[in-house]
């Protein structure tokens, strides 16, 4: 057991956890931030994507202790004062999800992309997002949503 100290969605957090606690379990069960989903459990599907010091990581194959002293951003941290993030609005406006399970991971990965490349081409979006699987949409609407958010279309 150790006391983990970090920032989650801008707020300081201190929790006692065992060293083998996975980051996804820490977020979901210790902090109740169930927006982050666990899909494949082997770092392939992208559903559990969160930002660790701004970098997209698969929280199912990271230990919570690896985030000690870091800043973690989850889907719950994107909206500001009840105002949805442009990516969240775009996914709603452009039909970027159906069942919704993969959506938090899709949006966190897309946020990491737009943070480093605010105006990506379609090919750059496809290349970056290939680690986020979706079994409903066929991906077209996800790509359109990210393009729309990047262009500021219909997401004001």
């Amino acid at each position, binding site marked *: 057991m*150790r006391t983990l100290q970090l920032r989650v969605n801008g707020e300081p957090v201190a929790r006692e956890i*065992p*060293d*083998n606690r*996975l980051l996804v379990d820490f977020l979901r069960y210790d902090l109740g931030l169930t927006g982050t989903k666990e899909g494949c*459990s*082997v*770092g*392939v599907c*992208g559903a559990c*994507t969160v930002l*660790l010091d701004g*970098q*997209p*990581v*698969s929280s199912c*194959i*990271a*230990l919570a*202790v*690896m985030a*000690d002293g870091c800043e973690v951003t989850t889907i719950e941290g994107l909206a500001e004062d009840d105002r949805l993030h442009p990516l969240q609005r775009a996914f709603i406006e452009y039909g970027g999800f159906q069942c919704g399970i993969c959506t938090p991971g899709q949006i966190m*990965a897309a946020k*990491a*992309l737009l943070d480093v490349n605010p105006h990506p081409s379609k090919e750059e979006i496809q290349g*970056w997002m*290939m*680690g*986020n699987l979706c079994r409903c949409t066929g991906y077209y609407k996800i790509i359109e949503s990210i393009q729309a958010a990047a262009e500021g279309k219909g997401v004001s």
Partner: protein
Amino acid sequence: MHAITYESPKSLAQALSLLSATGEKGRLLAGGTDLLIQMRAGVRKPEQLIDAKSIPELQVLSFNSQDGLRVGAAVPCCRLIEDPAVRQHYPGLVEAAGLIGSVQIQSRCSLGGNLCNGSPAADTTPALIALGAVCHVASSKGTRTVAVEDFVVSPGRTVLQADELLVEFRIPAPKPHSADCYQRFIPRNEMDIAVVGVGAAVTLNGDTCTAARISLGAVAPTPLFAKEAGASLVGKPLNESTIAAAAALAQQIAVPITDMRGTAEYRKHMVGVLTRRVLTTAAERARAK
């Protein structure tokens, strides 16, 4: 997952002293993108994880035209791929590192982790062998160097002793008119394990090849250095027939297995195809320099 203790040493000396105290029960944690999957599945059960993140020696990334490239064992692949000197001088290494997983994986995975995991199909290992990379290994008793092609001894096992850790890779400076290339075959576009991977690095003097190294992944219990295949090109022009002869020599040392990713016959065939492709591309890159 089983109970563990986690340490995050701030220096190499501290890490080595932890490792010499824990021995077989300890394991270095680089990005964890292989190790934590194996621990979740119960395949590996280290009692203590020693995180490389805060060990400065394992995070070195520097290049100069005399000594070449130094890459700390735990440098995340995303940092390596974005480095301008690495992109300019070692495009094959960038190709290999860029093939590992998604951006979520590349933000954590490392050359050292990829090698120490000991997979015969590791993508960056053939790229490192082609470049003649050398591993710098340390324990509390001293240091030693090991060529990358001698590092993996069987699937999942390496030459590292229980008290040793991989500190960094040293990759020779590129000679004029030299270049590398790495390609793999997988049945889909992304996010898969190599059916076959081939690396090559060539040096040209005019039309004549003065040095060539070829390496193979996923066609033997360990990544292979196809020494004779590379040597066959030295003193000759790189053309269709010399490249085909080198590819045939590379095929000779491949001893693949049949599994769900491909048959032994198909893998052997693909060694020939990919060796021809990577040699052709490496030669084009070397001529363009």
